[in-house]
């Protein structure tokens, strides 16, 4: 950061905040007609003592043939909406142990936009939306995430939808993933249409989420990106596909056809699935095939339901051959690596998950969730992929796919738990929650876990929220759950009255013997002066 740029940058930041403040003129969240707003104080005589009867009789024939508007509530267009927060404050980095020349040791004035979303609806059937998170210091943007979509409907079930995003987050300040360079992506671009309200079509690039698992989804064969272990529910990139849906009451059949993407007219893949609902269980039967056989044909069976007080789910996949390009050390030239495929024997992938939750009227709540995964296409010992020469051999293979280097183990286990208690009442109502999640790949002996303690004071933590966490990864370099080796990141977040936000994290890199190799710190304090 250059000193001469600082006043200009601070002025720009202030101007940005001013502009956002002015935006409050068209913020519409949090407003409602007085007739739909609860009274400031409950007076039972006022509620039930008025001159008008509390029962309004509507002619059944009128209700059966029309829509009865009971209160005046008509939305007028165009509509502008804004939501989110914007603030300014200080942001800094300091590396007290093991600092390298490239490590920042600075304190900045900074602007922080959090969940800032703009929505514009020129008519009821058209919706444009832009949302952004941004962390900027005077000399540069440290991280930014922008998402936008347009939902353009010709009718209720016929529309064009487009969504794209921009991410830049080299130090993963805003997300659980690192975006070292600015990354633009077209997330979705499709058209929806239907035939006689019986057959529905979605044509174009679209997200597809098959499977019922949480951390592991062997049946989600059409998604193009891996599951983020720290954010398993995050949206994942999907293919360009033609999708045909046929609902049959609660049951449901669908067919996907993914057209050629490499110019080879004979290269396409297809998948079909049928969901069957029986006695509170949803059973799905599916098949998948790809003409060029890069992804192997497979049959899929998934289920979700309950056994007693437990929710259970599972996915089972049988493949003829493995999708994976494997690597092994050459027997003739030790120290070098060669790749191979296994295409003529069956493989099995199977996962089972169990969830339990308990909630008492005294405010005590408890939940637990565990999922195990057997990946028959994985390596019994996937530590070979920790060798950079072996990884390069895979990446250099003619049949290389990005999935060759992810979920490469054979045995996995993941779980989460949470216990929460409520104390006090009124403005001092306090909710204390202790939670944790953990994932382990037994095949490369890497593990990742994040214990967390949260204390919320006031309604939904509106007065103060304190969160302590410690995301820790243990394993060898390039292992699945500790790609950067042993590392632990204690972090603290404190929010007061939803206005003042303090964050501090201390990423600590550890040697293989768990001695400290490097200690970094990142800290910020923001006054979220503008909120919508």
């Amino acid at each position: 950061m250059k000193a001469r740029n600082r006043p200009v940058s601070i002025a720009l930041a202030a101007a940005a905040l001013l502009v956002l403040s002015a935006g409050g003129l068209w913020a519409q969240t949090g407003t409602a007609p007085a007739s739909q707003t609860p009274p400031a104080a409950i007076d039972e005589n006022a509620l039930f003592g008025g001159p008008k009867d509390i029962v309004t009789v509507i002619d059944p024939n009128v209700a059966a043939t029309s829509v009865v508007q009971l209160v005046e509530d008509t939305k007028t267009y165009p509509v502008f909406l804004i939501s989110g927060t914007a603030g300014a404050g200080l942001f800094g980095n300091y590396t007290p142990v093991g600092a390298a020349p490239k490590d920042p040791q600075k304190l900045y004035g900074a602007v922080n936009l959090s969940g800032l979303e703009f929505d514009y609806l020129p008519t009821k059937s058209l919706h444009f939306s832009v949302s952004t998170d941004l962390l900027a210091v005077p000399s540069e943007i440290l991280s930014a995430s922008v998402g936008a979509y347009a939902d353009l409907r010709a009718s209720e079930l016929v529309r064009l939808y487009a969504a794209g995003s921009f991410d830049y987050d080299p130090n993963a300040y805003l997300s659980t993933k690192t975006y070292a360079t600015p990354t633009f992506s077209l997330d979705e671009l499709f058209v929806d249409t239907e035939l006689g309200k019986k057959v529905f079509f979605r044509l174009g690039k679209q997200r597809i989420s098959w499977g019922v698992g949480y951390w592991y989804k062997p049946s989600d064969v059409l998604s193009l990106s891996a599951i983020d272990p720290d954010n398993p529910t995050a949206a994942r990139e999907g293919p360009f596909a033609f999708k045909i849906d046929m609902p049959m009451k609660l049951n449901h059949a669908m067919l996907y056809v993914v057209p050629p993407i490499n110019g080879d007219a004979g290269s396409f893949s297809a998948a079909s699935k049928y969901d069957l609902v029986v006695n509170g269980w949803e059973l799905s039967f599916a098949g998948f095939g790809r003409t060029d056989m890069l992804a192997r044909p497979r049959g899929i069976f998934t289920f979700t339901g309950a056994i007693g007080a437990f929710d259970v789910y599972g996915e089972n996949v049988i493949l003829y051959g493995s999708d994976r390009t494997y690597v092994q050390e050459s027997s003739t030239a030790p120290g070098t690596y060669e790749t191979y495929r296994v295409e003529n024997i069956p493989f099995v992938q199977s996962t089972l998950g169990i969830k339990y939750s308990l909630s008492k009227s005294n405010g005590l709540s408890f939940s637990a969730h565990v999922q195990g995964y057997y990946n028959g296409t994985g390596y019994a010992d996937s530590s070979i992929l920790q060798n950079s020469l072996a990884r390069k051999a895979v990446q250099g293979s003619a049949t290389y796919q990005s999935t060759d280097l992810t979920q490469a183990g054979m045995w996995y286990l993941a779980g989460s738990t949470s216990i929460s208690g409520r104390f006090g009442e009124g403005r001092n109502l306090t909710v204390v929650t202790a939670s944790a999640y953990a994932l382990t790949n037994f095949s490369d002996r890497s593990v990742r876990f994040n214990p967390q303690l949260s204390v919320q004071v006031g309604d939904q933590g509106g007065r103060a929220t304190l969160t302590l966490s410690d995301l820790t990864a243990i394993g060898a370099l390039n292992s699945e759950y500790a790609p950067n080796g042993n590392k632990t990141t204690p972090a603290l977040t404190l929010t007061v009255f939803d206005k003042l936000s303090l964050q501090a994290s201390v990423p600590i890199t550890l040697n293989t013997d768990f001695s400290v190799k490097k200690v970094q710190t990142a800290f910020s304090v923001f006054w979220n002066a503008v909120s919508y």
Partner: protein
Amino acid sequence: MVNMERRMTSKMSLVLFGLVLIFSAKAQGAPPAGGGQGGGAPMGGIGLPPGFLEQNKDYQFPDDITKYSATDFLMLVRRTDIRSSFYDSDMTATITTVSVSPDKGTFVRKEQIFRRDKDDAFLMLTLEPESRKGQGMLRVDNNMWRYDPTSRKFTHTTLKDTYENSTVRNNDFRRWQRSIDYSVEKITTGTLGNYTVIIGELKANNDEVPFPYIRMYIEKDRKIVLKVEEYSLSMKLLRTAYYTQYVQIGNSFVPTVQIFQDGLIPEKRSQVTYTDISTKPVPDYYFTKEYLERVSQ
């Protein structure tokens, strides 16, 4: 040789699709009685105990409200349960919920609901805030699906699970069935504004309900619920619900203005207001996952 193997496996995969499609077609079966779109097994039944509706039809309540027995009051609760539903038609409405929090300010949420009580089917779509538009929930009998338009993911859960990590259980989205879930402990009488009410103290007979104890205030003439106090196991008042306006359509009563007072935070309350109410038939495809996905963003 490799090419031959690939051709074989390619054919095998096509056979696999065919099997799935044939299975789908077979499972589709005949359309339900009375027509309608699509086929498949009929939706789950209304799931009520045998005789639940019939036993209440001709029940004679005492003329003198001070003479109510526990059985009389339970049948009164059953009548309010039955009349909160539409067993002879579908029902749609738009619901606005305005929540006021001393720490979080005012939050407005608008949803559209579609009910088919004879099938115990319920669809809810979020209309506002715009940032959550398209999120939705479909429940039919013991099955519940939530849809996240961001990840395009459906989640099938049971009524035992909690709703979006909140303290609300999926079971809370079922129609009123207090006469099944509670037994009567004590009965008194009183007034609420202009209305004479019968007051019943009820105790839960299972742990599926969010409140172990409730106190119900039921208006004596039209037999509609005006107020419900909900207590914890230690009899701490957790919430009070006021049903301050109703519409009557045929034999059914819908509480169109509901005010909820939090028992732990006095300044926290919310109001649920119904509008755009109708009993027009809802197309069958509305109660499908496909509709939920298509109307979302």
